[in-house]
């Protein structure tokens, strides 16, 4: 099952954040469809639209892997199904 999801990262900027996150996604067969990233006052903010292939890696498992690198790098990472944002912000 292909599940669109929004991944958001927030935290202090440092080397390798994008690489680590992208690495986990690649290992999990999740495809990155779009990325937006900004740094405001040293705070790194990135949102990604990804497609999770749940036949390959479950949503729970990817969340677990992301939470491990979030702790490693010291940033906040959330992965949520995309429809929650679509429902809230689009008619």
């Amino acid at each position, binding site marked *: 099952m292909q599940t669109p999801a*929004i991944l*958001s990262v927030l935290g202090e900027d440092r080397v390798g954040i994008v690489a680590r996150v992208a690495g986990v996604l690649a290992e999990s067969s999740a495809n990155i*469809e*779009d990325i*937006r990233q*900004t740094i405001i006052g040293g705070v790194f*903010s990135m*949102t990604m*639209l990804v497609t999770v292939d749940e036949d390959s890696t479950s*949503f*729970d498992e990817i*969340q677990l892997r992301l939470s491990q690198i979030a702790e490693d790098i010291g940033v906040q990472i*959330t*992965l*949520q*199904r*995309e*429809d*929650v*944002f*679509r*429902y*809230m*912000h*689009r*008619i």
Partner: protein
Amino acid sequence: MHIEPEEIVETLNMISQQSLDIRTVTLGLSLAGCADSDIDVMAKRVYEHVTSSASNLVPMAEKLEREYGIPICNKRISVTPVAMLGATCSTEDVTPIALALDRAAHEVGVDFIGGFSALTHKGMGDGARKLIASIPEALASTRRVCASVNVATTRAGTNMDAVLAMAHTVKKCAELTAEHDSIACAKLVVFANMVEDNPFMAGAVHGYGEPAAVINVGISGPGVVRAIVDALPKDADLTAVAEAIKATSFKITRMGELVAREAAARMGVAMGIVDLSLAPTPAEGDSVAEIIEAMGVGRCGGPGTTAALALLNDAVKKGGAMGTSSIGGLSGAFIPVSEDQGMIRAVESGALTIEKLEAMTSVCSVGLDMIAIPGDTTAETIAGIIADECAIGVVNAKTTAVRLIPAVGKVVGDRVEFGGLLGEAPVMAVNQWAGTVFARRAGRVPAPLQSLRN
């Protein structure tokens, strides 16, 4: 990307900073197939039906929470009003059904199960009579079971025999749980115009007109609405305030709609309704009183409060109505005292009285909710308070309810403490001029002209 980063941040902030959550995912279950003349056989069937139907409810809801990143505070169950089962059995005491429901709720991991209930607005059948007589023992001997009794409707008027019977029942519940601040009363609601699809406790039931199983969702979000009102310029006019609340309510409701659809699909049952009630919690900031104060009323309960609450309630409905086609339940702001820090502060500062709360119930859902009163309050006084709320509900064709806690041994200024979502509350003063004659007249207050709508 179709979703803007600002929108993602807004959603994340609502959840992490402003206590946005889904207040409850409630599985409604019909117990119609459990009837038997033997109470023990019936209790066994009830236990088996609830545990088998709801075994996946909590794991499913927890998975939804993780996938959507939205906290789902409560997972609950409502069942067919148990008075219907009571009518079929040969014994008088129907407490064994409550015990079976309590065990089943524990087994599947839900904190409350509603439906130990009866409808008595036009008269009291055998089942209702047995159920009401069993309520004190049932609530005192269980932790998770909630009871509710409907005593009035716009179409039927108010059954004053039932009102007085319920006032005595409230007193008995208080006495049986005196050592725990009369907590049984926190699980007992007396209704006018009870709805059949309410997902919120303690008044949740699964009505006779419902399908065999259904998922109903109660949204929340007082904290989000307060933050939106707070962020407006202090000179923003009330039309702008209403507009801001409406837009926020739409977003909150959409989240509820999504969760309701998805939960129903995963449980393999019908999607019922989304209840648009703003339900406060004891958490700081998650307060309806603070929304009223953010609008500019000096302290909740002060002049302007009823108008501000009416505006809030209306704007929430208008925004919510665009967000789902399945509005139901109570759908209005809740004003429980013990579950709202702002309400508690307002009571303690003398700004908020029971009489003002009564006025507020005429413009919102649901009624005099979670209010601790002195333990020596008479049954006739409680009956008078219930009758007053019924009058507001019946005449205005809306739901009203009374959940009073006459805390044994407590006087005005003392506190009751229940913990968890039920919170704590200061004991409020009650008007002493009820007398005894009105409540004891019994009979039925006839239905008002508003009932003649055909």
